[in-house]
């Protein structure tokens, strides 16, 4: 529960950062999609349920702050999450060596896919696809993935060694002595 809340807050912070400080002007293409790195981290390090619970408010917020077609960011986030989760489980991408470049590749694939779907469903709403701009975003994503992953890991470690031992507060039922004996 605490983990979910912490990562949700972190995701919201990244969304706000991306739409304010990192956007120098409304046409700026050099603002990295930080939320996507969180999506990748959740796909690689967290179970499906908690990942989806965190992604929901984050993608919702991005949808509110950006764009005119509602559902664009949830679509990007959930497709990316599923894709990355699948590849992490089924393919050698599980090796951390491949994970960072694969974030960039998956971003490119998911963006193009969602763009095609949107241009089919809402023609004339999207700006023309620009390879240089998208490749710049991919590059920024790959460059920033490692430091952000470290940040997320640090948050995770902090939460594990939290000052408030939430596990101790949990009500435990049954004969604890017997349970411990059975464990042994």
């Amino acid at each position: 529960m605490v983990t979910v809340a912490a990562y949700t807050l972190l995701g919201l912070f990244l969304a706000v950062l991306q739409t304010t400080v990192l956007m120098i002007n409304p046409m700026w293409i050099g603002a990295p999609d930080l939320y996507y790195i969180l999506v990748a981290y959740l796909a690689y390090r967290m179970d499906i349920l908690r990942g989806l619970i965190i992604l929901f408010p984050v993608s919702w917020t991005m949808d509110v702050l950006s764009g005119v077609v509602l559902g664009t960011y949830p679509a990007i986030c959930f497709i990316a999450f599923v894709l990355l989760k699948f590849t992490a489980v089924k393919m050698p991408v599980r090796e951390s060596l491949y994970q960072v470049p694969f974030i960039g590749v998956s971003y490119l694939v998911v963006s193009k896919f969602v763009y095609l779907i949107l241009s089919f469903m809402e023609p004339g709403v999207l700006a023309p696809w620009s390879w240089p701009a998208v490749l710049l975003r991919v590059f920024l994503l790959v460059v920033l993935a490692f430091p952000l992953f470290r940040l997320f890991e640090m948050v995770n470690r902090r939460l594990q060694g939290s000052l408030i031992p939430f596990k101790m507060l949990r009500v435990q039922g049954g004969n604890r002595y017997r349970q411990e004996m059975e464990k042994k």
Partner: protein
Amino acid sequence: MRARGGSKRNNGFRALRIVLFSGILLTLALIFLVSTLGTQRFGFVHKLVFEATAPVQSVFAGAAGYVNVAREEYLALFNVREENRRLWKALQESRDAANRNREALATNTRLRKLLEFKESTDLPMLAARIVGKDPSLWFRTVVVDRGSSDGVVKGMPVVDGDGVVGQVFSVSPNYSKVLLAIAPSSAIDVLLQKSRVRGILKGTGSLTYKLDYVLKTVDVQEGDHVVTAGYGGLFPTGMPVGVVSQVVRKRRGMFLDIEVTPTVDFLTLEDLLIIEREMEFTR
């Protein structure tokens, strides 16, 4: 015995020599003293001594002066360091003040322009500030700090001192999302100011517009001004939108391909005005 006699003689000679030498010296000293005090003349000896001692004096004086200067400089270093620190602080403060002044000047110019624009029209307007920008590559929107509690409703035109910026796309109690006129989904009814020919101005996603539905028979020149037509009651008539920057006459088709450069600088947008109009679809 003999040796003792020789030794006594030697001692006598030595004493005599000393007495003689002392006598001569005393005599000379007396002569020198008497001649000096008596005549008060700066004689040869004086000059000789003077010439001999003055250079030494000079060297010592120079050395003493050097030591003095070094001492003073060393002591001054402490003051200089302190003064340096003080001056750096003062310089930093001055730079900060200059920056603040420049920023204030720029803000003043921008707001003055907005105020002039606001005063030039009778339309009720609401000042708004951009608080967020759309980071996506596909959409062009900004978030402003005015919402439904300020009377903002969907569809209201948004302008700045240079002309049309866009229109309100979605509203919450305190914030609104503004669809910029350069967004591909934006379409504004406009007029070519000179010929009064009507067209539809569409965003391209970049820093230009595309003016559609202007017939080939119309005389359109680069530099012609494009203003809002006012049809449909969304934008007021005659608001500046852009300037024709390119006209292409294709062999096929009925219409001209016209590119329009916005009058608004979308890269430096900060303060906006929302024109408070009663929107038909929100009644």
